[in-house]
């Protein structure tokens, strides 16, 4: 059983952040042989997070969320982009975790925004945050602007990121659950991908 905790920082209901979190959760469930998922919706913890900043201890619901993260084999962390970075609420949750709690934990980072111009937030804000917390950030991060929810490109990135998280966090469900490594030019020169395969891929989009 692989324990996955999904931390989602959207504020509206329903939020695109939660939608992205759900898609990542479903893909991660599929990629894992057996998964147990806990959702941490930060909006519900907003008051207790502020109280924690002032008192130094968590209220009961926040304490349960922190314990879930402590016990997690993998974490999916999804934030909306506010003013060019993660939201303050999202940051506060990771601010109140005691040092060491995320050490070595695989984390899939994802973010939503109104425009694709924010896409580097994953690499400029989220990766440094989780590097500081000594988490292991999976190679593929998933950024979704409003437009991305209209197309199907997002699915491939979601599957790839979920597969990477599954590989780091637990036992994957099958041989094709984990993403295949990209072939290098060197490998193509040695053994080219047959043209029938290239044709098939191009028709799949």
């Amino acid at each position, binding site marked *: 059983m692989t324990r996955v905790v999904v931390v989602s920082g959207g504020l509206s209901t329903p939020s695109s952040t939660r939608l992205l979190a759900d898609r990542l959760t479903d893909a991660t469930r599929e990629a894992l042989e057996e998964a147990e998922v806990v959702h941490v919706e930060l909006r519900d913890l907003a008051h207790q997070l502020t109280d924690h900043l002032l008192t130094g201890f968590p*209220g009961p619901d926040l304490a349960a969320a922190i314990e879930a993260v402590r016990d997690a084999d993998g974490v999916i962390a999804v934030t909306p982009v506010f003013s060019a970075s993660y939201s303050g609420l999202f940051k506060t949750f990771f601010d109140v975790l005691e040092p060491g709690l995320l050490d070595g934990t695989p984390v899939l980072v994802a973010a939503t925004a109104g425009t694709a111009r924010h896409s580097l937030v994953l690499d400029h804000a989220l990766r440094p945050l989780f590097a500081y917390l000594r988490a292991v950030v999976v190679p593929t991060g998933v950024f979704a602007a409003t437009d991305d929810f209209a197309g199907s490109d997002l699915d491939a990135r979601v599957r790839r990121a979920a597969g990477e998280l599954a590989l780091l966090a637990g036992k994957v469900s099958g041989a094709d659950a984990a993403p295949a490594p990209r072939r290098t030019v060197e490998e193509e020169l040695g053994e080219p991908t047959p043209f029938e395969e290239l044709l098939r891929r191009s028709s799949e989009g």
Partner: protein
Amino acid sequence: MQIGIFTVGDVTTDPTTGRTPTEQERIKATVAIARKAEEIGLDVFATGEHHNPPFIASNPTATLAYIGALTERIILSTATTLITTTDPVLIAEDYAKIQHLTDGRVDLMMGRGNTGPVYPWFGKDIRQGINLAVENYALLRRLWSEDVVSWEGRFRTPLQGYTSTPRPLDGVAPFVWHGSIRSPEIAEQAAYYGDGFFHNHIFWPAGHTQQMVDLYRRRFEHYGHGPADTAIVGLGGQFFMRRNSQDAVAEFRPYFDNAPVYGHGPSLEDFTEATPLTVGSPQQVLERTLSFREYAGHYQRQLFLLDHAGLPLKTVLEQLDLLGEILPDMRRGFAEGRPAHVPDAPTHASLVAKAGGASDATVYAPADAATGHRAEDAEGAVGAEGGAEVRA
């Protein structure tokens, strides 16, 4: 069972009147509160140590010595003494001196302070907080237990043939508690030495206090000082009471809502449920206090924080009057079901008895070998020429 009060010495605006006391008013109020504590029959008065506004709690030794001169019976203590940033050579002198002045009515609680910036004010590095607490306290113990100390460590200059004066009263060092809210290392330190462990028990939920006290008790036994239930445990606590519990809630709420540390955060109701703060009738305070034993075991010292958050002196003295009224019931309650083998908190008298009686610990030195020398000439002068003669 010792019951008393502790103060942090905050200068806080009274949110109901907008008035802020002057430093002198607050300092004099602290003295008045300590005298009242003795008058109503409390056992301990302890003061914190802070070196920045809005506190008046710097120089706790002057405060305690002054209160010591105005009282006769109450034990004077600290909550806490900054073992991290205060030179242990100074602590050894200061508290041995207060021992002599008050005939042994003093003990100490070691702590690491509430504020990071205090470290550089005293030339120390906050990143070494725990290491400072460990090294400084080890030296302090030697300064009290050994007449002549040669020592070398990491955080201060070495000592060569150094004698701390005055020697502890009757040859017995003041009892030491170690206070920490959330550092297991400090509970471990207290257990290692067989000293007392005090948990602040104000800002955090009971479950957290229980974890720290359990750790200390378990390790106290591990280090061979006796069974876990004989370890020396102290707890903080805070209350506000009026005869009618609704009056207590209504009067205290503005102070709570604006209090330093937790003000503008959780509601009074949430905080009283999550932490040991009790706001209500004397009976409610009595029952809540006696319930602390359910998770801390039978313990030795209970200190209440009463004079904070801008409460005026008059109100604090009224709180003490009410505490005085329930004090006999509180003592009876604490005695109930207490096994005979659970010890009381050590006092000067009990420590002297344990040492087999009082002895004059004075170090009689034949001549002053240090004064008048230039610093350059002083090397080796104290130990080599002075040759302190020890009569125990």
